[in-house]
């Protein structure tokens, strides 16, 4: 205590900061960083859970980078990212933008959009899977057929399956993004819009020159979090392609599913760890890049 009282204000702050962080730091180190470090070490080892671990050097990485499936999966993962993030952001922005201007039953409509975020991914994936079926039962194809269009193979196709799965993922996450966007919209001072009204500029100009630029912090926040989300996509893919996870022909398989598969079907923990390290690196690089953008104002 005597020692404490001789500290300067900023030194006392440091003491307090670490007092606040002490327990959490222990937690993060033991519960999060240790397993992570473990995964890094494991990525240089071979282990099938049952036997002993043995060091194999870079073999797992070597094998990974020479595996065409990995590159396919890598490509898929980025497809989820570069399709999913913009599509979901644009959609949720459009919804939030208009919902913000609606008064009647506002709360109810908002709840409608948020509801999918709350329901079980397993159950919903099943429903979507059936919606996508060909004609006798599939809702979408029945609809197309009733309009006289040809059928579309949604899930049973190497080209359409990934977008189809993605649609379900976008759907599930939309409500969360809508809510955040609406909050961001609400935070823009009204007087900016009034000033623009007096200047008589078009709605489009207001949208592109005022609303969107001022919404940038919100947008970047969502970009970071939805990017992490899409790069880590798993639930929807796994549940919509249960019979052939990541199929057909690996066309929907994301990195996390590959990891899951390697770890819990192949029980090749070292190899799975190497994949995890790759995923970790991608995520960290993408997030740090985006956070940089967030800072730059």
């Amino acid at each position: 205590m005597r020692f404490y009282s001789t500290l300067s204000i900023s030194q006392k702050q440091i003491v307090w900061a670490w007092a606040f962080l002490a327990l959490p730091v222990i937690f993060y180190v033991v519960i999060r960083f240790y397993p992570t470090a473990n995964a890094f070490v494991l990525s240089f080892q071979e282990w099938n859970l049952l036997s002993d671990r043995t060091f194999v050097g870079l073999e797992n990485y070597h094998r990974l980078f020479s595996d065409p499936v990995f590159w396919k999966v890598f490509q898929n993962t980025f497809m989820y990212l570069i399709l999913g993030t913009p599509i979901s952001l644009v959609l949720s922005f459009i919804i939030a933008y208009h919902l913000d201007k609606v008064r009647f039953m506002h709360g109810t409509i908002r709840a409608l959009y948020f509801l999918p975020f709350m329901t079980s991914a397993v159950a919903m994936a099943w429903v979507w899977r059936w919606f996508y079926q060909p004609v006798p039962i599939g809702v979408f194809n029945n609809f197309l057929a009733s309009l006289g269009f040809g059928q579309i193979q949604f899930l049973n196709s190497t080209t359409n399956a990934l977008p189809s799965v993605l649609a379900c993922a976008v759907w599930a996450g939309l409500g969360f993004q809508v809510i955040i966007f609406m909050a961001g919209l609400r935070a823009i001072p009204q007087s900016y819009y009034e000033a623009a009204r007096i200047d008589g500029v078009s709605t489009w100009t207001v949208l592109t020159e005022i609303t969107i630029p001022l919404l940038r912090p919100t947008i970047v926040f969502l970009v970071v979090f939805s990017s992490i989300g899409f790069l880590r996509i798993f639930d929807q893919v796994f549940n919509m392609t249960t019979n052939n996870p990541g199929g057909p022909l690996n066309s929907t398989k994301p990195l996390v599913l590959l990891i899951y598969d390697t770890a819990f079907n192949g029980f090749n923990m070292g190899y799975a760890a190497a994949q995890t390290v790759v995923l970790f690196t991608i995520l960290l690089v993408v997030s740090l890049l985006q956070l940089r953008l967030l800072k730059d104002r």
Partner: protein
Amino acid sequence: MATVSIRNLVKAYGKVEVLHGISLDVADGEFVVFVGPSGCGKSTTLRMIAGLEDITGGEIHIGGRLVNNLEPKDRDIAMVFQNYAIYPHMSVRKNIGFGLRTSKMSKADKQKRIDEVAGILGMTDLLERRPNQLSGGQRQRVAIGRAMVRNPAVFLFDEPLSNLDAQLRTQMRLEIKKLHQRVGNTIIFVTHDQVEAMTMADRIVIMKDGYIQQVGTPLEVYHRPANIFVAQFIGAPSMNMLPGTWTGGGVQFADGVGVKLPARKASEGTGVVLGLRPDDLLVTKEKGLFSGTVNIVEPLGADTLVYVGVNGHEVIAKASGREPPKVGQTVELSADAGEMHLFDARSGEALP
């Protein structure tokens, strides 16, 4: 250039009526200032003129045209907001140019116009800066520039100076005044600072609780306030108010002291209030109207404000800055009969 005329303007938010039917005519090129305490409806009136709020009742004409249902952009007005509302993500040039978005000018003409306005406001050097690189006063000028660039018939200002510190405020007051003298547009200016109102207005509109209390030139409202509210609102420090009874030839106070006054439109025995501005109530050496004990002394430099206890009331008087009286001293106060204001105690109306 345009006249603005307001007829029985009523505004209600839901069931709450906040403007109770006000009427006003603003001449072409006139500088009108709305003052009043917070919440009296100044901004609401201004925003209805601008077309930002629905009109509940009554009519607004600008340049002779009924504008009740016109979009703001069709009213030929520009508005400067209290918080500037300049876009943080645009350079000064873009902010000013924003007002020209819808204009049919050529690009080169627009740039010329922006440069011109920037020149008038003395911010040619700042055109490429972002708002966060500007000081408060400069930001305010950008907001004014954005309004000016379109050269509208009517300028609307909503407390544009209240976020500035005292020095900047004085300076901007001057610039707006000069602007008005140069371009001659009609200006409606809202403030709750009576010094601003006094120094800038051709005419002052004093509002309270959604009613207009008085409309007049600064000297009129200062020297001939229509009622107690106006008398106290205009002038700082506030006018001293001394309640008494009208005796026919003067005012009789509770403590027996009396003040002689010329005849007024009041019947004998009415409760009245005598109003005396601190500026007119001077600490004198000779015997004056009242005498009292000095409670507080506020030196202002040239003058000194003296708070004097006079029979239970505290009044503010003025003494010279050089030899101010001391706290606890007994002083004499005198005033010129021409500077005394008399009000009906019940209605608050002036008794001329």
